[in-house]
């Protein structure tokens, strides 16, 4: 497999084809379409490169349309919509041939939110109890992939009760493959997963705006080379780590799929037009030159965005609401919405000489913003009469 890197400004474009990639002619709602498939690592499961993240959809006809259009894997979790998400999927797959779809679900156990480590109640019995409830809601006797849900620490990757529960569930035929999902501290979790030699699949947040992108990419490559199936998530919406400015969903999806170590992705969609966008990418996941340029432009815009880590809050001598001020800066220079920026600045009730009196700034921004310069710039909006802006 030959892979080349090209790009600038930290955003790389890879020219390569995944091992085991193939094109299949698929019956898609009465039409024949050619969809790109890849093999999910050592599981051997052949999957379209885009499947459905069901998470936020309560619309059975949308899920039905996704399956009828050629998507195969439905990604859900025990906890999504308090269980209604699995129940909705169950109503759709009822009566369908069991080999016409696959299910990836997830079970989580009580964690200390601040440390990511498990609490006392994180037992094998609780994990299996939740799995049984999920199977009942889905109306199936097994799922293809069961993920250990939302892991952010290497210690939690090998939490023994979970490993024992997964082993037992595999033996009893309730799950085919053991997976792990991570959307925080991903590189550490992915490396620990490879080292554990336990898991078959990793579901990992991966997008072109991640600030630790190179570490995520390297970890994914190592896992893939170890034979682990890689499912990408948060390709378009990256949760709190991602800026809100993805202009082209298709380009964002294609960017993830250009990495041959990613075998499929499960973007969440709640509208038919979004599904159609995904299906078009499934036919042709290659980035066009225009899409590459657009992504480069967007990646360069990340310098306008606060990543919301909030580490600065305790560093500022005057306890200024720095994340809010950085948001005002974004409104000013990216959104070009001065009224919105001014409203925000005024709502913060800043002192008259905010950020003017320190000879040296004690704030060390995690993404390298020159915080005092941006604050001094944006607080000028306080003194601009509103009628000049509106």
């Amino acid at each position: 497999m030959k892979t080349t890197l090209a790009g600038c400004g930290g955003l790389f474009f890879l020219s390569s084809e995944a091992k085991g990639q193939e094109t299949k002619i698929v019956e898609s709602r009465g039409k024949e379409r050619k969809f790109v498939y890849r093999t999910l690592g050592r599981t051997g499961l052949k999957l379209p490169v885009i499947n459905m993240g069901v998470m936020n959809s309560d619309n059975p006809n949308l899920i039905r349309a996704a399956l009828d259009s050629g998507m195969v894997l439905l990604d859900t979790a025990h906890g999504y919509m308090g269980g209604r998400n699995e129940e909705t999927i169950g109503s759709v797959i009822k009566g369908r041939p069991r080999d016409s779809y696959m299910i990836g679900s997830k079970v989580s156990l009580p964690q200390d939110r601040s440390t990511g480590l498990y609490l006392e109640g994180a037992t094998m019995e609780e994990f299996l109890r939740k799995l049984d409830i999920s199977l009942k809601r889905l109306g199936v006797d097994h799922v293809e992939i069961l993920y250990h849900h939302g892991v952010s620490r290497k210690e939690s990757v090998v939490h023994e009760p979970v490993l024992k529960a997964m082993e037992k569930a595999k033996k009893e035929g309730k799950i085919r493959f053991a997976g792990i999902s991570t959307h925080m501290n991903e590189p550490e979790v992915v490396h620990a997963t490879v080292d554990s030699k336990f898991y078959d699949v990793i579901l990992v947040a991966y997008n072109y705006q991640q600030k630790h992108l190179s570490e995520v990419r390297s970890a994914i490559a190592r896992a893939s080379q170890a034979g682990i199936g890689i499912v990408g998530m948060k390709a378009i919406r990256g949760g709190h780590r991602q800026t809100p400015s993805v202009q082209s969903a298709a380009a964002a999806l294609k960017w993830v799929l250009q990495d041959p170590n990613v075998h499929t992705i499960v973007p969440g969609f709640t509208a038919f037009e979004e599904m159609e966008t995904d299906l078009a990418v499934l036919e042709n996941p290659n980035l066009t030159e225009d899409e590459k340029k657009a992504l480069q432009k967007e990646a360069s815009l990340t310098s306008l965005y606060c990543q919301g880590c909030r580490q600065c809050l305790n560093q500022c001598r005057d306890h200024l609401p720095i994340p809010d001020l950085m948001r005002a800066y974004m409104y000013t220079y990216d959104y070009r919405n001065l009224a919105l920026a001014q409203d925000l600045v005024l709502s913060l009730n800043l002192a008259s000489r905010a950020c003017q009196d320190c000879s040296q700034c004690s704030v060390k921004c995690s993404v390298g913003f020159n915080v005092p310069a941006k604050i001094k710039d944006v607080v000028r909006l306080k003194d601009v009469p509103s009628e000049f802006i509106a």
Partner: protein
Amino acid sequence: MLGIVGFLWSPWAQAADFKFPSVNDWKQADNIQAFDSSTLYEYIDGGADLYLAYDFEELKVAEYQNDKKASVTVDVYRHRTPTHAFGIYSQERFPGANFIEVGVQGYQEKHALNFLSGNTYVKITSYDTGPEDQAVLLSFAKAVAGNLGEKGAFPSLLAAFPAEGKVKNSEKFMVRKFLGYPFLHSAFSADYEVSGKNFRLFIIEGKDQADCRDMMEKYLEQLGMKDKTVAEGQYTLSDAYHGEIDLHWRGARIWGILDLGDPGLRSKYSKLFEQELQKRK
């Protein structure tokens, strides 16, 4: 400005000042965690997307522990309006749940109790509470509900759904992209089961007649009926994703029936729904 004053005087403003209650034999941890729309992901990860769609404003979380090291966590999600709080509650409510009278409505299961009150959605979870689990959860729920003030009621429009054949507690509020179409905004729906047939009634409340016209025009365009004259009245539409839909547009309301092939039953429920809606003009 008047809108802001109105909010401050509304009963829902109390929720913003909510204080966690003291509960006998339980010690509250010192730190109360708070999350806003930019930090909710830190607490519920990707699940935050759905809450944000329902105009989530703030989450406060308190932990309690007793002498036996059992613990209870209380999450109080505050949304912009009671309708939005009902919406997210309705997305997670199972019609067959074990319902209880707390707030507007609640339900409980092993180690969990959820309830709706005003513009808040409260989720209480327990650990190691032993055989007293359900009683413990209920006592916490009552104490929290007491501090939330005015409990409010279900959205009034829900009363317009005909009672005959309605699946109890199946009503939902979908905040956007109803039917999977971005041009159809929020809608209420309820599930029905009649003579072995399962179907759904829905109603979209537009801002005004023009808003509904805009939705109708876009929907007809979606269905390849761009040239059809758009006027108030009844439509029977063939939707590639949803099958045949009976749709009615009058004034600022669009309502209809989904997933029901039987024309006789469709006609019956169209009339029943219209009669109920006319009572609530």
